[in-house]
């Protein structure tokens, strides 16, 4: 049992490490507001599935039209370059990204 928990924890930690390395590291460096971006996706697409598809579209072809952010955003922040990861890896990273900022985790009763 302990072994299983250890293995699962290791896998999760290593996956988050991948996300950090593939995405967030650059976001932090460029001071791109990740949470704000997630909220904009949430505001427009509502469901995790819709958000995932929209993000995937953007990550595969990052342009002003596929981006969720307004054009003025790119006056201050650079347009991202293509990462070159395959779809499956991108999807895993998107899911981790959504889990990290998941709004449900922050909602509480009084």
């Amino acid at each position: 049992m302990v072994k299983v928990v250890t293995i699962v924890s290791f896998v999760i930690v290593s996956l988050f490490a991948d996300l950090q390395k593939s995405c967030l590291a650059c976001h932090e460096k460029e001071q791109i507001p990740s949470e704000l971006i997630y909220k904009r996706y949430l505001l427009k697409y509502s469901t995790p599935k819709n958000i995932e598809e929209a993000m995937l579209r953007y990550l595969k072809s990052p342009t002003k039209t596929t981006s969720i952010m307004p054009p003025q955003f790119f006056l201050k922040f650079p347009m991202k370059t293509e990462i070159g990861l395959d779809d499956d890896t991108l999807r895993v990273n998107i899911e981790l990204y959504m889990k990290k900022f998941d709004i449900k985790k922050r909602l509480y009763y009084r």
Partner: protein
Amino acid sequence: MLSSQNRSLIRFLSIYLISTLMLFALASWLFYSFTKQHLLDQQKDILLYEASHIKSQLRELHQSHSNRLIYPVAEQIESAIYDLDKRYIFGTLDERVELHSMDDIDKIYAIVDIEPHYLGAAYLLVVKNIDLEPITNLENKTLIFMLIATIFFAVLGYFLGGLFIAPMRESIERMNYFIQDATHELNTPISTILTNIEMIESMDKNLKNTQELKRIEIASKTLSRIYDDLAYLNLNHNYHRHIESIEIGLMVEERIEYFRVLAKAKELKIKLDIEPNIVLDIDKNDALRVCDNLISNAIKYNKVGGQLYIQVTQNTLVVEDSGVGINERDLGFILERFRRANKSEGGFGIGLNIVNHVVRNYGFDLQISSQQNQGTKVVIRW
């Protein structure tokens, strides 16, 4: 009041009250339904107002950078948010209610679209318990209104019914006065005729068997019986009864003898089957009225050359004739006063009514069976 008047009044009141109350019930139900719906709409408006409040609080939460987002709560209202696929996100509802499965009749629901989707929510479900107090008040008021209307229309109907049957009552009263007067006027001449017939018969034996005298005797006895019935009716059966032990077989034989002239005129074959010593505790006049009416009817409505069968047993008196009979339709009404099934013979239609009253008064059982053109059988059981 006579039973026919009562029946007419009851029929009138039933039709009047049923139709009026049905109309009122329909109007009250419509009023109740519309007002209840209006009350529910008012409660729903309050719910929607609270929903718009929650919605603006969701917008504030969406813009908040806090790590701890406190879900908005409104007093007496439960709510939940759902994404575009109608999947539950968060809420205060006890259970995760599916958006399409809300069927609790004690609650009011409202689903409000959220656009843009603050916190990812596309729908806001707000639920409130129905405030039953105004609805219960409305139900009580409607019931009280119906009750008052029922009482009012019942009283009004009773007065209208009185007006409705007034002409009938007047005509019956007029008939009763006429019978009273006629009875009074008939008494002396009938007694005089019968006494004088007896005197003539005793004075001149040759005259006794003449056809003319027999006809006078038959007519006088018929008149005498009618007089007795009318006098009985005038007293409305309410006179002091002297109950005594009467040998019923003996009385039947006496009355047959009394009516023998009438039976002979119709050439009837009389068959008597009378057990001796059958004694009944009964008023003599009541017993006479029963015997006279049954025997005279059996003679009157018999065919010429027909049969008259009378049987007295320990528990029954049977009078059977082979006459015109009564049709099935009239058989149900034959015991009513002034009701005559066959108008070919004279009479007022009071004979069987008197028999029925006497029978009921003593707790006996009266049974009449008849077939048209074959005869009638009357059985009294005691």
